[in-house]
């Protein structure tokens, strides 16, 4: 049972345009959601997060939206830059115990000049 799903394995966007990455989850007990960025042969780097009491969180070019009723979150990157090309993972956790993260499969984002 995959509790966190990223249905798009890849996404190609032109430089300067908006990149929208999507993520769906099934566990209604999740109350913390995160996006990580990963380059090859490196560990994931934390990008932005949102708690379940909010529906939007913004940090510079990055905005995360949470729709609890639809169990859906998205990451918007505006404007997209070549350095944004990477694999993006969404993750979710409850706040109980060890706060274990459940990850999606990842979306490879390619920004074209």
């Amino acid at each position, binding site marked *: 049972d995959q509790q*966190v799903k*990223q249905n798009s394995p890849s996404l190609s966007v032109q430089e300067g345009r908006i990149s929208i990455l999507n993520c769906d989850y099934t566990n209604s007990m999740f109350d*913390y959601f*995160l996006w*990580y960025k990963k380059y090859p*042969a*490196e*560990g*994931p*780097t*934390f990008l932005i*997060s949102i*708690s379940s009491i909010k529906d939007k969180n913004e940090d510079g070019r990055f905005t995360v939206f949470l729709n609890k009723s639809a169990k859906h979150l998205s990451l918007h990157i505006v404007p997209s830059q070549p350095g944004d090309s990477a694999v993006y*993972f969404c*993750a979710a956790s409850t*706040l109980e*115990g*060890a*706060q*274990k*993260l*459940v*990850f*999606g*499969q*990842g979306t490879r984002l390619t920004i074209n000049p």
Partner: protein
Amino acid sequence: SQTIHQWPATLVQPVGSPLSLECTVEGTSNPNLYWYRQAAGRGLQLLFYSVGIGQISSEVPQNLSASRPQDRQFILSSKKLLLSDSGFYLCAWGSKDRLYQPQHFGDGTRLSIL
């Protein structure tokens, strides 16, 4: 500031050989520690986590084990490696002190089993 170190960066091992991967965290105390594995083309799967010295919880049945001999040291081991143990292994730490805090990852170990 906090840092997390993993070594080695890459490892090639024959089937049936033992394994020891080490992870240490600096700049924080009493963290939660985690081992993840990323198989080729897949997401990250949690293997083990630890909330304190000597406290290990396993998430999936497997050929691996973990230990936490010191507060900021986390070790992933195997007595006999299988081909299916190949993958990219990541250590991470998280804070217990505050809610809504992300986990932070090391740079990983690429393990290839021949």
